[in-house]
């Protein structure tokens, strides 16, 4: 069965290693924090200038001067630091952040990503996404494999305005875990109970399928 958003986040959390500084995008990526192993040390960075983000505050303890990049009230953990926006993007552009997890509307088989604009329809802006995808060595995309009409979002070429080119390394969708390799999606894992055939049908771009494709383990 296809994964829920929580399950996508849960699978991605396995990619988060001890000692990582991690930037989480809005949406599914935000949920990843809930599933990170308890026995490793990870620091969350928010591009509005927070390093060492903690959980949401208890009711009544929210502070308008303390929000994340999604404008949600947050807390910080011991050892946290606040910085200005220029220094925050020094962390990102300077490749000091080890892992970036963000959502996408489309990804192409060469690693292009589109997630900020639907011309004539939705124009919210790219926020920090263009800096993140252009800079990060290690980008994981959290996304649905198909849109509501069932059309693939893993394409030969993106149709929407791009956020970045040749930058996505790994994708965790509701159907599969894939890497980008040789101008193709390489299928690494299937969602439990989802067949290779289903994934193939839901993927417009080249899909490399070699050997047995294991089911995800959480």
């Amino acid at each position, binding site marked *: 069965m296809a994964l829920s958003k929580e399950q996508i986040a849960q699978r991605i959390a396995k990619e988060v290693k001890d000692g990582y500084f991690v930037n989480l995008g809005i949406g599914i990526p935000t949920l990843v924090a809930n599933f990170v192993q308890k026995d490793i040390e990870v620091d969350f960075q928010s591009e509005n200038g927070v390093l060492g983000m903690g959980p949401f*505050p208890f009711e009544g303890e929210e*502070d*308008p001067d303390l929000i994340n990049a999604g404008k949600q009230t947050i807390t910080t953990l011991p050892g946290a630091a*606040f910085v*200005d926006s*220029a220094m925050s993007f020094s962390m990102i552009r300077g490749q000091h952040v080890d892992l970036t997890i963000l959502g996408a509307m489309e990804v192409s088989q060469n690693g292009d990503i589109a997630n900020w604009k639907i011309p004539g329809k939705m124009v919210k*802006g*790219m926020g920090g996404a263009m800096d993140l995808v*252009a800079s990060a060595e290690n980008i994981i995309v959290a996304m649905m494999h198909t849109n509501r009409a069932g059309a693939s979002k893993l394409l030969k070429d993106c149709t929407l305005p791009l956020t970045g080119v040749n930058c996505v390394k790994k994708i965790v969708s509701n159907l599969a875990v894939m890497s980008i390799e040789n101008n193709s999606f390489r299928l690494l894992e299937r969602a439990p109970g989802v067949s290779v055939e289903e994934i193939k049908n839901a993927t417009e771009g080249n899909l490399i399928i070699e050997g047995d494709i294991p089911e995800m383990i959480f």
Partner: protein
Amino acid sequence: MINKTVSNVKEACQGIKDSMTFMLGGFGLSGIPENSIAELVRLNVKDVTCISNNAGVDDFGLGLLLQKKQIRKMISSYVGENAEFERQMLSGELEVELIPQGTLAQRCQAAQSGIPAFYTPAGYGTEVAEGKESREFHGKMHLLEKAFEADFAFVKAWKGDAAGNLVFKGSARNFNPNMCGAAKITVAEVEELVPVGTLDPNQIHIPGIFVQRIFQGDKYEKRIEQLTVRKRD
């Protein structure tokens, strides 16, 4: 010590004219110069260009200037959460230039620092690259981005003194320090104006040389955009 205090927001905004370019600090509604924005609404200054990461919400922040159609052009990285904004943009009343958030911060910082241009990888291969020079460094393509030019920068700090020294709080810091000294005149409003000498010189985020006018804001609403809490067990 050179005294930068003005008695109120009116005095702080002297010299403001139609068609000027403003920088405004804040991320979402956090750390925005509330008192200066209110004065810009009152002055009814028109056709202005605003450099600000966001555009406020319908009834707060820069949304207040949008309602009165005072803004000709917005230069921002993210403008969601604002229906009036979307309406004006789609109808063509409002010109919008969307740029990557890190580029926005660095173009402010460059203006403060007298760096006329710099290279960044953000936006290469996208719409943002249109009309911009690109160049390879270390096997990776970068865009040439230029320092902003603005008439006034409006920033909001937590504490400040008469010398114009500023200290920010939490994530309300954001773009505010980078905009100081990045425009011809920097207006800083603070929650608390403290006596000179009480701020530790080691702990000043922005020294007064980057600030031309400073005043204590009358009041701060500090609205929360996305109240998110967890339950106590």
